[in-house]
């Protein structure tokens, strides 16, 4: 049986956030306020580091508990993923474990040397050369000079920066900078390694290399606590996971279990009633023929606005008003989070398909959705004759999740990896 290397007992941490400032009403108030400001500031700054241990202190409305009575143990050799939405307390937990900040309550027992990687390239100095920064950064991460000397060549190789070793890092490309920074960190050899979301850097090839390195670390019997929003990475690296929510543990268990639950909750969070949208009557006041309602379904005919990569999406649109011509043609445009037009569709112009005045409901099937993960919005418009009688901007929104067409551990988001993912293959030419 493996023994616990980290024991966490009733760990709590609170921060004091600045209380809301009150606005002035009169000139006189503003003047008086200006005069009394130094006293108030002094009081506020002094309070910053004073906490009443009484948790039910009603006056302390500017205190937030980043962690509340967390208890768990980590076994030797365990690779534990920590997940949860922003502000759940993940980073605070790592900061306390790595000794950067002190807990407000509770006790932690750690039996081993801890190294933490809360950020890649901490302490890099732009004016220093690559070589100098390797030593400086290594020392900052807790390596001894001798250790760094031993691993120096390995680090340089991993980062692929041999040629630029004696160039100040401010002349490096951002890619080189990140590679060097990660390379130093990757060669840490502590008994316990704490990692916070550091894989979200560099290009895909390098990310994959980092993941590979991480896997080596994880399988090398070291204890790792790994915070990430990348569920793919968590799945492939960790045996167990903890789901933090509002400073408390919501679930602890095997990775598949916890991540599965977490993802479902994420989907439910996106999913509100917004898969059926009624038109605001104000929008259509002066319009003759217009959209009155839209709903969104998946291939199985279920209402949703969450779609996985490569699935189809179905829109049911209702029309209202009076059709002046004989027939109409609906159109749609899909925009991504950056406001770029991703694609467009039109029944008349593209397919020669027109609907007559007996039709008030049209089904639009779109897909497979080969777009990268992120938020999208659909705008609708309708053409009657040659006239666009109605445009419904941002009629409905959707989320694409799990755009992982190739690498199991890597999700391709819009912001970094482009608009869509096309099928492709590579082969050697003899």
């Amino acid at each position, binding site marked *: 049986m493996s023994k616990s290397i980290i024991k966490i007992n009733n760990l709590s941490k609170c921060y004091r956030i600045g209380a809301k400032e009150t606005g002035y009403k009169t000139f006189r108030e503003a003047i008086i306020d200006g005069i009394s400001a130094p006293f108030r500031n002094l009081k506020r700054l002094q309070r*910053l*580091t004073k906490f009443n241990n009484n948790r039910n202190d009603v006056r302390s409305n500017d205190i937030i508990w980043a962690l509340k009575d967390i208890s768990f143990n980590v076994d030797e050799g365990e690779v534990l993923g920590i997940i949860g939405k922003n502000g759940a307390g993940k980073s605070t937990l790592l900061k306390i474990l790595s000794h950067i900040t*002190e*807990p407000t309550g509770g006790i932690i027992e750690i039996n081993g040397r801890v190294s933490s990687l*809360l950020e890649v390239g901490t*302490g890099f100095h732009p004016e220093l050369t690559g070589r*100098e920064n390797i030593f*400086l950064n290594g020392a900052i991460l807790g390596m001894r*000079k001798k250790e760094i000397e031993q691993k120096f060549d390995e680090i340089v190789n991993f980062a692929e920066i041999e040629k630029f070793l004696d160039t100040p890092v401010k002349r490096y490309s951002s890619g080189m900078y990140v590679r060097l920074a990660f390379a130093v960190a990757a060669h840490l050899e502590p008994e316990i390694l704490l990692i916070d979301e550091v894989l979200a850097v560099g290009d895909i090839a390098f990310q994959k290399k980092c993941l590979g390195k991480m896997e080596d670390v994880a399988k090398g019997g070291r204890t790792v606590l790994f915070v990430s929003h990348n569920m793919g990475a968590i799945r492939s690296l960790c045996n167990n996971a903890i789901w933090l929510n509002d400073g408390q543990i919501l679930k602890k268990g095997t990775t598949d279990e916890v991540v599965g639950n977490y993802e479902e909750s994420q989907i439910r969070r996106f999913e509100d009633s917004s898969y059926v949208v009624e038109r605001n009557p104000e929008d259509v006041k002066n319009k003759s023929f217009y959209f009155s309602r839209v709903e969104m379904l998946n291939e199985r005919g279920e209402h949703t606005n969450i779609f996985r990569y490569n699935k189809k999406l179905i829109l049911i649109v209702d029309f209202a008003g009076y059709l002046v011509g004989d027939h109409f043609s609906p159109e749609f445009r899909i925009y991504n989070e950056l406001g770029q037009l991703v694609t467009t569709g039109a029944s008349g112009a593209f397919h020669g398909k027109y609907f007559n005045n007996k039709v008030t409901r049209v089904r639009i099937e779109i897909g497979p959705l080969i777009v990268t993960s992120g938020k999208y919005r659909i705008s609708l418009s309708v053409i009657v004759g040659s006239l666009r009688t109605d445009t419904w901007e941002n009629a409905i929104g959707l989320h694409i999740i799990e755009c992982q067409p190739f690498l199991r551990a890597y999700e391709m988001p819009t912001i970094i990896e482009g608009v869509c993912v096309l099928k492709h293959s590579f082969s050697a030419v003899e």
Partner: protein
Amino acid sequence: MIIKPKKGWQLIDFKELSEYRDLFYFLVARDIKVRYKQTVLGGLWAIIQPFFSMIVFTLFFGRLAKMPSDGIPYPVFNFSAMVAWTYFANAVTNSGNSLITNTNLISKVYFPRLIAPLTPVLAGLLDFSIAFIVLIIMMFYFHISPNIMILYLPLLVILMMLTASGVGMLLAALNAKYRDIRYTIPFLVQLWLFASPIVYPASMLPEKYRLAYALNPMVGIIEGFRSALLGTIAFPKQILLISTLMSVILFISGMFYFKQTERYFADII
């Protein structure tokens, strides 16, 4: 290792400090290497600062105000003080701002926080040595030779470092919470310059105030320098004793205040 909320007085963990000596070394090296990067004059800046101040002071105080200088040429009288003073002023300024300039380190990695304010105190020694060489050249030029009391020189340098780090640690810790300190430091340094015997000799003060004057540790240090190197006055043992006591008190209280407050640096910086 146990992590829990700390209560009461924090003592200095020397074992831990020694474990982090490599980091300390690299941070000092960083400070030294980076200081004059991308400058035309480079290391010459270490000389220019005290040297030009000396020229200005010589013109205004030496020539115009006819300030006494204990019987030796005013330029070398003033420069001998400027060498120590420039070191002290820079060390206090950089040390007092050290937590702010290293914010990203403080909030992202753990290391004994004391290293931050102590780094500039050590790194400044290089500039001090460069300026000191210029002082020696000046002494040759004015045909002044040091006396036996030069054996006290290492002690004076240590006192200078103790004082600078004591004040530096105190200011750094306060600065983490009250950013007013950042704007106070230049002001404080300027006032302190005139409260120390730099443009004038300590002998200008009436005898009865001289011991009280020595409560400013820079008084003993600077007068000690002058006496040992230039033979201005008899070695000021009494003054130096008080100054030594004061600088030790400053150092210990600075360090203790820093240790008591360091637990929340990462949270509020």
